[in-house]
């Protein structure tokens, strides 16, 4: 199925009670592309990517991941779909009672049924990839925010996913730690993994993204390559958003 797009949204809606946060999104994300999703808070960015691996239950419309309809996947099929999609949370959500290594190996052992030696080897490899080979035995509480998020990225990479989703990966970090996390994500972009990143880091978006989506009130207002987006976004709301976020007082990637 390698010819199918990585993600395809078909007229996706999502409501929480009476509140409709996604109001008809159709979208195709190609393999190996790097897509940045931005927009004001409450615009539905997080909901949109959480819909991909069904952290949000479907309301209406379909989302296909590597050709599989994620709305219909159940049980084992859903677990395998999720295991093939790495997800990185704003709050890291590392398992606090497990070491960095165990955080990485848990799903390998439980979902992919790998043996301990095999899983430990993967852990070593992905922790080295995020620059934390020496922290394998540390508990999350002993790590800085930036290190925790890098362990979370290592955990998301462990199952060798073709698709990684980032939900505001640097928003909970102290400014001096944002750079180290963005550097890791930038590195992944060069390895050909498909990335969808919800972020306000416009410096990162400008240099790494192939494509920028601007979401507002549950609708994609703008979908363009970075040069077009930053030079002259068509939508007035996107221009307004940019002028606010690009003010010199806003901290961006160092």
């Amino acid at each position, binding site marked *: 199925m390698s010819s199918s797009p990585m993600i395809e949204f078909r007229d996706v809606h999502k409501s929480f009670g009476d509140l409709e946060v996604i109001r008809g999104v159709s979208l195709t994300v190609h393999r190996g592309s790097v897509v940045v999703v931005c927009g004001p808070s409450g615009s539905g960015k997080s909901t949109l990517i959480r819909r991909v691996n069904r952290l949000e239950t479907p309301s209406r419309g379909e989302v296909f991941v590597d050709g599989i309809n994620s709305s219909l996947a159940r049980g084992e099929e859903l677990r395998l779909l999720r295991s093939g999609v790495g997800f990185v949370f704003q709050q890291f959500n590392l398992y606090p009672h497990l070491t960095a290594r165990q955080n990485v190996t848990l799903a390998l052992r439980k*979902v992919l049924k790998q043996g301990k030696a095999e899983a430990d080897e993967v852990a070593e490899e992905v922790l080295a990839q995020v620059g934390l080979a020496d922290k394998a035995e540390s508990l999350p509480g002993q790590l800085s925010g930036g290190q925790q998020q890098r362990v979370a990225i290592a955990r998301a990479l462990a199952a060798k996913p073709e698709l990684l989703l980032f939900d505001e990966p640097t928003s909970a970090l102290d400014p001096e730690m944002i750079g180290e996390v963005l550097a890791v994500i930038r590195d992944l972009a060069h390895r050909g993994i498909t990335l969808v990143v919800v972020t306000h880091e416009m410096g990162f978006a400008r240099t790494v993204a192939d494509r920028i989506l601007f979401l507002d009130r549950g609708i994609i207002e703008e979908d363009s390559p970075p040069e077009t987006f930053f030079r002259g976004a068509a939508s007035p709301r996107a221009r307004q958003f940019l002028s606010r976020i690009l003010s010199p007082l806003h901290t961006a990637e160092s």
Partner: protein
Amino acid sequence: MSIPIDWAGVLTGEPARWLAEGLAVTLATTIVAGLGATLVAVSLTALRLSPSAPILWLSRGIVSVFRNTPLLVQLLVWYFVGFGVLPAGARAWLVADHPWAVLPGNVSLLAPEFLAAAWGLSLFVGVFLSEEIQAGLNAIPRGQREAAASQGLGSWDSIAAVLLPQALRNARQPVVGQYLNLMKLTSIACSVGLAEITYQARVIESYNSHAFEAGTILYLAVGFVMERLLLAGGRS
């Protein structure tokens, strides 16, 4: 003026033997009911994690009944009513002699008094334990469940590997407290004739001297050792 404590009257001869037997019964009841309460707590926790509404109501009903009635009444019901509703064959078997079921210290594991006490305490304390675990689960941020789900862990794996270890860690002190309560609550089982420490202290009291002091010190000593053991075990 000092309270007259007649240690010699308690720590020698028959009274000393009675007290030792009482201690053995208290320990045996605590261990058996402790295991039983753990099983009850795990089962109730499993029921309460179920997505099915009738099962949830059932588990809430069980918790409500056992939490809102006095332990003394529950023990009396198990002893007098529970034993009575057993089939005649089972009753006859229970009251017959079973030397293999008698532990050192004259602790008869199949005596109706012991069974009623162990069973009643298992349920009573198990319900409170499950409430503590529930509180521990509720204190876990939603992101932990989401992280487990996002990695493809099934509901059993996420409970066993991600949620329960954290719940037990959150609830460690109250859980230890419930096990200590269990040990102390065995004293109430003297009301159904279980010959544990308090029961024996009363016997000695009517025989020759003050024995409650000795009983209290025994509870304190058992409680102290148990607390250390449980806290050390829970840390690992």
